[in-house]
């Protein structure tokens, strides 16, 4: 049962979409965990966590769709990459365990500091690991036959540490912007200050990763600096610069929703940038998405489900967000 080239492209798009929705939604609630230590215990932390309580679980489900989608639509890529990023993958899962249960436990415990720390450490570890995994995949892994052929520390490099730190900074930025939107008063004031720092760190991170990536391998380089690649890729850095400037202006004017949307736009642009670098590889330099593709009837069978259910999912997820809309006050927690 051979793979189908068009279906494969569609599935690459669906998985890209799932991962993108994951990073911009779970990104902001992980970001709140990352920022937890600089928030004051009591009203500020309670307000911040109250804004994400009804939605974080649904946000995290996109990660399961992303992983499950790769497993089903590109099983060979899944089989090669998961062992290649074994250590950061396990670290991410453990981080997600700690921060996930912290939501429930911190409301039940007398040792709230312990679960606040678990919430912070788990969120930060999960974000950092995701960045490391991204870097490890971008820099390439050793393959022999249909399996990973490297060691279990191959993922570790200055580049993967840089991408790890970058994702932490970027999630923190999203978290701060989310708080600007959803809170008011002192909590919001603090969120503006955090957004300035998060924004500066994120823009530096984007710059550093953008400069390093094209030199990882020649394919990436040619996509950015050689014809015809740069006709498509050249607008990306220009748009990043414009979005960055708009973001600074929005913070200056104390806009409430614009910073969050612009931060998401920055994510979208970097996401497109990563896509330009990596396409059409599923495992960079080794396996293309067409080589990794699942049987055509598997992709088609799932596409029916996605076509029928994804609009419904987007519908009720939006409904849940709408239901818990508006500013979250601290006065309810006295």
């Amino acid at each position, binding site marked *: 049962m051979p793979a189908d080239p068009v279906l494969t492209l569609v599935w690459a798009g669906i998985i890209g979409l799932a991962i993108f929705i994951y990073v911009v939604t779970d990104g902001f609630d992980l970001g709140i965990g990352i920022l937890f230590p600089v928030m004051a215990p009591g009203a500020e932390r309670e307000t911040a966590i109250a804004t994400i309580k009804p939605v974080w679980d649904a946000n995290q489900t996109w990660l399961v769709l992303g992983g499950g989608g790769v497993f089903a639509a590109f*099983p060979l890529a899944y089989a090669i990459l998961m062992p290649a990023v074994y250590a950061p993958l396990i670290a991410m899962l453990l981080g997600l365990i700690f921060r996930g249960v912290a939501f429930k436990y911190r409301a039940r415990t007398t040792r709230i500091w312990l679960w606040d720390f678990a919430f912070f450490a788990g969120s930060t570890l999960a974000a950092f690991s995701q960045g490391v995994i991204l870097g490890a995949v971008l820099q390439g892994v050793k393959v022999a036959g249909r399996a990973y052929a490297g060691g279990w520390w191959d993922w570790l490099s200055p580049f993967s540490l840089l991408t790890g730190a970058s994702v932490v900074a970027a999630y923190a930025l999203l978290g701060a912007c989310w708080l600007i939107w959803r809170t008011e008063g002192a909590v919001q004031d603090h969120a503006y200050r955090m957004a300035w720092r998060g924004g500066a760190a994120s823009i530096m991170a984007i710059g550093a990763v953008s400069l390093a990536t094209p030199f990882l391998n020649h394919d990436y380089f040619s996509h950015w600096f050689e014809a015809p690649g740069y006709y498509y890729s050249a607008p990306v850095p220009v748009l990043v610069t414009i979005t960055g400037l708009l973001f600074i202006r929005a913070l200056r004017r104390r806009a409430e929703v614009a910073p969050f949307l612009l931060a998401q736009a920055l994510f979208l642009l970097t996401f497109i940038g990563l896509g330009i670098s990596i396409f059409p590889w599923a495992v960079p330099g080794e396996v293309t998405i067409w080589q990794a593709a699942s049987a055509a009837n598997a992709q088609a069978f799932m596409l029916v489900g996605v076509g029928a259910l994804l609009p419904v999912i987007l519908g009720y997820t939006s409904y849940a967000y709408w239901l818990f809309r508006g500013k979250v006050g601290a006065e309810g927690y006295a």
Partner: protein
Amino acid sequence: MFDEMSALALARFQFAFTVSFHFIFPAFSIGLASYLAVLEGLWLKTGRDVYLQLFRYWLKIFAIAFGMGVVSGIVMAYQFGSNWSAFSDKAGPVIGPLMAYEVLSAFFLESGFLGVMLFGLDRVGKKLHFLATCLVAIGTTISAFWIIAVNSWMQTPQGFGIAPNGQFYATDWFAVVFNPSMPYRLVHTLLGAYLTTALVVGAVGAFHLLKDRKMGRAPQQATKIMFAMAMGMVAVTAPLQVLAGHEHGVNTLEHQPAKIAAMEGHYESHDRAAPLILFGVPDDERQVMDYKIEVPALGSLVLQHDIEAPTTGLDKVAPENRARVAFPFYAFRVMVGLGVLMLLLGGWAAYSAWRGRLFENRWLHRLALMLGPAGFIAVLAGWITTETGRQPFTVFGVLRTADSASPLAAPAVAASLIAFIVVYFFVFGVGTWFILKLMKSEPSPAEPGPPPEQAADVGSLPPGAPFGFQLAE
């Protein structure tokens, strides 16, 4: 030691450990979600406050159990790739889509409406809230459907071919999903989940009945109702489960006779009148059952309803395809033994209720309390039976476990295994302790919902929300 303990053995142990821990939570939350939907439905229908008390009481426990199920479930989703990459590569085109359907049709439904269920009563009103509760309950059941389809396909694979590159591919999706063991396993598992929940609810009710009697005070109305509902559920589901388990066994005999031989401890075949081995000590080296206590001819009668029926023993299975007998043999006996106790509890409770002594019979309450964790143990024992009985294959008869693992070094698997063990015992130990603490207090007319921090007043709807009360205090 590390050389002896291969990466494969460590990966198997890691899967067994993480899946066993994980399965405890869905086994409980599938049943509890449905119980919550029933309670809320009864509250809406009768308007009696006591159902709302019970709903709030169990909702707090559900929130913690569900949370633990979610985080331990993500580990499972990624472990296929991390530790079983060869299996993922080969089986991905067949079971991958089924798991993707689980995410699309169940996980999003559960996680999307859980927030409404926990925090939304004052925002959406009673009817929509009830709908959210029902959707979460339905989501847990759909999730069971898909993951049981995957597991059953691994037990009784059909509707597939093997491509030149070694990958499986589906030739008939309907045959893949509704493979021969799937309906039996699904019913058996769902009934197990309901029974597990009923036993927990019953034990909590029994605990408070006993405590109230000791303190010389009358039990709360809510306590009596939950005990009565739980015992009613046990009385109905325990016999059904025995029946379903039997049918599942007959189905296994047809499709996986080697597994039945291991479960029954039959090293040798019988032309007729196979005995039923009640107990013994299996010895795989010598392929004999030591110290066995057996009932003549009953084995053929139970599984084949015919005393003349021949039975296949492990002697007719190629040595390299035999499972190790000890796991399925002992685990099966644990499950059946607990099943008998559950049957006894259900019958006794029904008799007590008929005599009008359901809330007075202290010995009944003691048995109910004792059997509180029995459902979890039975469900795990059942899983150990079916999973170890499938060995040495991951996809029965087609793909060997030894050919399924990732190319990882033993230290990598050992390190992650140790990390999982430490974290799971700590994190889920704490969660279980929180749940037990909640169970220790009796549901009361002033039953609070999830604590203030959990049920925060999110957003700024006009004050005096439509139904004027919240789940939270």
